[in-house]
């Protein structure tokens, strides 16, 4: 897989179709792969990597890259193509300047989950028949592959590439996923329990803004959180109200545009289940205004910039579910 990708990238660089390649390179440790841009075949040979840890969604980075000279080659997983499509729909990416190769998606692994099992000092991770063989400085450890799968891959919604120029590997299908189960579980709690749950989760927030910075739907050049007069500018919170305000506004600003790629929860250093806020909006939109998947196509209107004269009244929120 990785060799095929390297091979194809070098070919396209050599024949001048593209002048840069966007993929991933190994970080300081084997498991913290980061997005990277390669300009030559030598660089690709040396640093390019695509393994079980290449979680990052490259779509957002293409907003800036597509403004530079020349065409860039990007490897996109199925979930990344949704984000790409959504950005294309919002005219944030210049399609002509990006050459997309679709690659099969996950399940990808989350090193944080491995570490949370008490396995530290990791030097390498190998997948041997769906058992992870983890080399650490203290010796070899083993764990089942599926236990270390990242949260966003556990409830995968689609293995289908919605946009690509060519594919490596096969295209998959849209999957039946249970991604709303956890939202439903919360909805069935009483309002006091829900409040306690979110108070506990959101109070862990350190306002590092990683969720907002990684989100492929957050691409405003001037962000409300950059405005010192907004009362929620980038600073440490001094009251629990501020973290609620931040997370409500963050989720609301991407409502109807969030493709549910799960990057927000993945990057959260405090492991706050931020994707649940986004999924709540998606679930509401689906149930109240008809099924909608952001980024699935380029034509349908965003449900929040559209309306119908017989929409339900907001009182529906107060009538259903548990108080």
């Amino acid at each position, binding site marked *: 897989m990785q060799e095929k990708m390297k091979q194809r990238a070098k070919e396209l660089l050599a024949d001048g179709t593209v002048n840069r390649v966007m993929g991933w390179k190994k970080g300081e440790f084997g498991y913290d792969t980061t997005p990277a841009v390669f300009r030559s075949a030598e660089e690709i040979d040396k640093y390019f990597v695509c393994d079980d840890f290449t979680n990052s969604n490259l779509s957002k980075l293409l907003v800036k890259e597509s403004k530079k000279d020349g065409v860039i080659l990007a490897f996109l997983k199925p979930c990344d193509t949704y984000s790409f499509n959504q950005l294309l729909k919002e005219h944030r990416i210049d399609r002509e300047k990006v050459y997309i190769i679709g690659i099969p998606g996950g399940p990808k692994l989350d090193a944080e989950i491995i570490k949370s099992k008490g396995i530290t000092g990791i030097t390498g991770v190998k997948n041997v028949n769906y058992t992870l063989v983890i080399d650490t400085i203290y010796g070899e450890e083993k764990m089942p592959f599926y236990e270390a799968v990242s949260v966003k891959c556990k409830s995968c919604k689609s293995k289908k590439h919605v946009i690509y120029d060519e594919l490596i590997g096969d295209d998959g299908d849209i999957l039946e996923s249970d991604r709303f189960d956890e*939202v439903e579980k919360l909805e069935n709690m009483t309002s006091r329990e829900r409040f306690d*749950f979110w108070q506990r989760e959101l109070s862990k927030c350190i306002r590092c803004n990683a969720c907002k910075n990684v989100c492929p739907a957050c691409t405003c050049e001037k962000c409300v959180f950059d405005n010192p007069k907004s009362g929620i500018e980038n600073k440490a919170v001094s009251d629990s109200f501020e973290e609620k305000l931040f997370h409500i506004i963050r*989720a609301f600003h991407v409502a109807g545009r969030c493709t549910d790629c799960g990057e927000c929860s993945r990057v959260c250093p405090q492991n706050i289940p931020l994707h649940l806020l986004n999924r709540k909006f998606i679930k509401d939109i689906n149930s*109240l205004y008809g099924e909608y998947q952001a980024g699935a196509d380029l034509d349908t209107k965003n449900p929040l910039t559209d309306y119908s004269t017989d929409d339900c*009244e*907001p009182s529906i929120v107060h009538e259903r579910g548990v108080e």
Partner: protein
Amino acid sequence: MQVNDSKNFEPVIAAFCCNWCSYAGADLSGTNRLSYPTNVKIIRVPCSCRVNPMFILRAFQRGADGVIICGCHPGDCHYTSGNYFTRRRITLLYSMLDFLGIERNRTRLEWVSAAEGAKFASVMEQFTEDVRKLGPNRRLEDLRCRKK
């Protein structure tokens, strides 16, 4: 410090009223000599669609115990379609506040036309009563803004 503040609790209600319908409706209820609770603080907005979700959260932060948005009836918007967008947006926001465990009776959206002075008074009466029952807003308050 008051020992039992729920007894003499007077809620603060922030009412966002659209300039063309509900604000005129409030005016009409006044000229008709109808009374509505003094707890209601009216904030005039050009259209109910002007109400940014941040306004609502900010109102709670600065001491409101309930927030009500009043606009023209669907189909009667001065700007043709503003209140249709409001309806979707506010439905989602209220649903999110409910999801986060904020009491659902603290938020409301009502359509009040310029001819409905009596409706304005009764809606405010009813809403103030509902919020009074809930007591002070504690789940979405900013301690720095709490009054003594």
